[in-house]
């Protein structure tokens, strides 16, 4: 049931500043698409336009189309709350709700459904998502403890479980490993690989090896100069981007000549 995303002519602003300009690309369902590029090129901004989180920032504004299968996320009458319910997000820094237990963190999104669950039903969903996030064995004995007591990597997996618990169609990940150590990073990458059979996954990363390891397709973003809007340079299968990109700038970036 994972959905396809098709973006056309998307431009995003912060107030009067144009952050990204005229981006057109599509994201395949049940696959991992990585966004790479130098800092400030707008890849995170772009990611946040895909679940209408960009407009939460004061002054944030978007032009263009984002089609989720056959519905435009920015069409008239579209409810941003429903969009975010359908397109889940995992953030750069693990951000479990500090006042909630591990259990309640996973169940947090479900409680917003307006549907009341039986305790046993909720227990099942929590367990299933924690297992899917490869976290169950580590936390099953302390589900009632606060989520902030976990290690960084565990917290991030908890956040992934929290995002998957509401069964979104798409999962956006904004540099999910940048605050984590290599071992936790590996655990998350394993998890992404497992989740991709169920979800459309988009991941922003600074780490090119990571992009090469986890993604099927890679999009390279760049900006002409500081203060200029970021642009999509090219998007292609990950193999091709890393072996034989069609644009010189991509090759320069990947081979470490700048950025």
């Amino acid at each position, binding site marked *: *049931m994972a959905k396809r995303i098709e973006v056309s002519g998307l431009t995003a602003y912060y107030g009067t500043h144009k952050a990204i300009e005229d981006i057109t690309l599509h994201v395949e369902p049940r696959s991992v698409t990585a966004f790479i590029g130098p800092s400030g090129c707008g890849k995170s901004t772009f990611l946040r336009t895909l679940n209408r989180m960009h407009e939460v920032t004061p002054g944030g504004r978007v032009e263009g189309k984002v089609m*989720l299968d056959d*519905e435009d*996320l920015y*069409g008239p*009458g*579209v*409810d941003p709350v*429903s*969009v975010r*319910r*359908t397109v889940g997000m995992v953030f750069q820094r693990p951000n479990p709700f500090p006042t909630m237990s591990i259990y309640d963190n996973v169940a947090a999104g*479900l409680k*917003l*459904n*307006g*549907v009341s669950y039986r305790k046993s039903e909720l227990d099942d*969903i929590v367990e*299933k*998502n924690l*297992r*899917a996030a*490869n976290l169950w064995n580590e936390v099953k004995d302390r589900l009632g403890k606060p989520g902030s007591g976990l290690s960084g990597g565990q917290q991030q997996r908890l956040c992934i479980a929290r995002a*998957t618990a*509401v*069964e979104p169609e798409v999962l956006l990940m904004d540099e999910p490993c940048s605050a984590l150590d290599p071992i936790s990073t590996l655990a998350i990458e*394993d998890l992404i690989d*497992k*989740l991709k059979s*169920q*979800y459309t996954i988009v991941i922003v990363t600074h780490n090119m090896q990571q992009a090469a390891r986890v993604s099927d397709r890679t999009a390279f973003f760049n900006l002409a100069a500081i203060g200029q809007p970021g642009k999509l340079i090219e998007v292609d299968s990950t193999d091709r981007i890393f072996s034989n990109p069609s644009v010189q700038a991509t090759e320069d970036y990947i081979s470490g000549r700048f950025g």
Partner: protein
Amino acid sequence: MTYPNMTVRRTPIDPGRTTLRPPKLPRWATAALVVGSLAAGATVGLVGRLDSRVQWGLIAALVFVAATYGLSAAIEGRRYAKDRLAAILVWACFVIAVLPLASLVWETVARGVPGVDWYFLTHSMNGVLSWQNGGGIYHALLGTVQQVLIASVIAIPIGLLTAVYLVEYGRGKLAKTITFFVDVMTGVPSIVAGLFILSLWIMMLDFGYSGFAGAMALAILMMPIVVRSTEEMLKLVPNELRESSLALGVPKWRTILKVVLPTSIGGITTGVMLALARIAGETAPILLLVFGNQMINGNVFEGAQSSLPLFVYEQWGYGTEQAYDRAWAAALVLIAFVMILNLVARGIARWKAPKTGR
């Protein structure tokens, strides 16, 4: 690690979620509801012969809240209805709070302005009876300025040094105790500070009423505010600054005096001025210790004086129209005095604020 028979996906858990376009109340719905509720309020008011427009308004407000919630719950669902309800209530809180506070400012300005002129500012109440027009606040202004200045002379050094101790030297139990009691001292009611000086200075040491006695009580109220704000400012000074100065061989006390304090002087000044504004409006300790005087007494160390807030209280107490007029006029001057101190303080804070990348 994989779990056999473990799939992430389950049957759809939220049947209402099939669309990104849930039913929504149209934009004009709120306007329509406002008009409708006002009409309903007026109708009920007319039919029920309620003569208070306030009651009409309240009925209209209740109808608006109920109708919005009901309609939204029916069309958009309970979650969205609650969201709307919360927004309405929060706006209502804002309006409820603005009304009295705006009225307070309005009344003070409207009733105060006619009484304030040059004569009012430059004459005392000497020989003016409560039912007579005329008289002024010169003696009170003089008293307030003197008392506040003396209070600051006592409180600022102690406050600053205490803050320096807490941030730069303080360790262990003593510092913790001081911190705790500074906090507690912030909450000491002004009248209690007044009673303390009364029992020590006037009843025990047998001094008379004077501006100085009042200033001591004001100093007690001022100290913790100065300590608190200075402490916050000193904590903002980056440690690298201290270390680089110490590394140059500058002794610690000179580092504090020449590096730490100048760096945070803007914030400290702001804190001190806010504290000044706070004590300038205190009445209770002045009532107990300075006692009040209709005449000009320039000697802050001997004899009863007056002060602006005390003047307001006294004039209110006379209960005549003429005295009320004077009370409002003095209240306006007092508000202006306090607000100017505040605005200048905040101006300094903004001007001296460390530039952030915003």
